[in-house]
Structure formats: C-alpha cells, structure tokens
C-alpha cells in the first residue's frame, strides 16, 4: 500500500524558494504567473493495514513541521 504526503508551507509563511522560482519563470518569459509556493512530496510504501492515524502521526512527529507547514495525505489505490 502506498501513500503520498504533501507538505506545504502554511499560507502567509514567506517562501523564498517559491519567490526565486517565480522570478526564474518570469525571466524565461512566462507571463501571468501570480505566485509560486514550493513544497515537498513524500511517498510512503506501507504495510497493509497501516491506519490513517498512523500516517497522520508520522506527519506530525517528523514529516511536517507544523509550526510552519501543513500536510495532506493521499492514499494511493494499487500503485
């Protein structure tokens, strides 16, 4: 069983990397990009029966720093 964890900066938290990407896109001539936020995608290969609570605990204890980051868990069906 696989799950994906998306870790993103909370709204309002300054994202210097996103800003740099934004500038680079503009430098390449892509107009109309209003904002860029960079985050992380973590793929977990899990034992069958791993509960949502377990995955959430992984996120809270390590994968995300909840002071500055939000996370979203997406279970993948038969990857």
């Amino acid at each position, binding site marked *: 069983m696989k799950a994906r964890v998306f870790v993103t900066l909370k709204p309002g*938290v*300054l994202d*210097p*990397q996103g800003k*740099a990407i934004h500038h680079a896109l503009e430098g390449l001539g892509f107009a109309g990009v209003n904002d860029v936020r960079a985050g992380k995608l973590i793929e977990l290969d899990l034992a069958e029966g791993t509960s949502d609570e377990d995955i959430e605990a992984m996120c809270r*204890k*390590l*994968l995300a*720093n909840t*002071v*500055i980051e939000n996370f979203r868990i997406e279970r993948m069906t038969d990857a």
Partner: protein
Amino acid sequence: MKTAVVVFPGSNCDRDLAVALEQVTGRAPTMVWHRDSELPEDVDFIGLPGGFSYGDYLRSGAMAARSPIMRAVADAAARGVPVLGVCNGFQVLTETGLLPGALMRNAGLNFVSRAVELRVESTQSLFTSAYESGETIRIPVAHHDGNYQADAETLDRLEGNGRIAFRYAEEVNGSARRIAGILNVSGNVLGMMPHPERAIEAAHGNTDGRRLLEGLLEAVA
C-alpha cells in the same frame, strides 16, 4: 564546570565548541554521540554545535531532533541544565520544540558567512549576564537557514518576556523582528544562529563570544 557537546553525523563545529569550552572552563567537554541515550552524570552544561546534521535532510535539524540523545537533552533542560544550541544546534532546538518557531531558508536565498553586529537584548539569563543591555557585539554567522519565523503571538510573547537574547543590528537573513537568538521560558535554553565559539581568542578577530561562556561559567559555578 562539567560540560558536554553532542555530536551528530554532519556536525562540523563540535570541535570548535569543545576548544572554546576547554579554554574558558579549563576542562575538556565530554563529546556525546547522537546515538547515546545518556549524558554524563552531573553535567552542568550541554552544547549543540553547528553544522549540517544528517545533511539537512527533510529540514535543517529535523533528523537530529529525533535522535536518542535529544530525549536526554530535553530531560536535562527540564531539570534546569543550561543548553546552548548554535546555528544547526538552534535548528535542532526548534525542531524538538524546546524553543518556539522555526528557522527557514534565508530570505535572500544566499548562504551568509560573515561577522555581523548583534544587539544584546536581554542580560537576564545565564548566557548573557556578562554583557551589558543594549551593547553591540560582533559574532560570525555562517548559515543558509537562519531566517527565524514564528506567529505574531509567539513573537510578542518572546519580546514581552525578555526572551529575545540577541537581535541582528543589521539585516542578515530576513528573521522576524531581526531575531538572532532566543531563550526558553525558564531562561536555561538558548538558541542562536551566530557562532560565539568563533569569537573566543584574539586570532579570531574579536573575543565577544568568549564572554557568553565566561558569563555562563560564573553563573553556574
């Protein structure tokens, strides 16, 4: 004074901190490996050094914060043992929750490596008693993730309770309210991005960092 320095894989200022502690206290610290689960008995001070523990994987300090020795460090901090986290050590302290907030990528995206001026904001701690309030000191920084951020409520609380130990006198990395170092509620845990162990002897350019350790020695001894 019996001191200990924790060494993580990727620490690179552990020996500088050890040399500084030996010079000031007259006694070499015990170097404690991250996999150890116990600190030396009756330790009077714990240092978390700078560097790139675990290659900064996931987030700076994130892996080190979950290593076995950090449970012992948290227990010791709760008993009132002074703990100083420098640079990566500061990142480890925020990741363990011993200090609030987080250290993010420098606002300018560049790695900043130079001596900077700091204003001593609080002299009411074990670490800052040898300084004068409002004094400007010069301490080197060398970091990529030194941009201190916390929510407004936390920042107000830090300011209101005199828990901001040092502020940058100039813009360095985008830190909220120019915070360079903060204390925990009890005042026995200090995290700071600048490296006091790099300003210990005349050959370093100045000795402003030495007074931090001297003040601590006096307060603890």
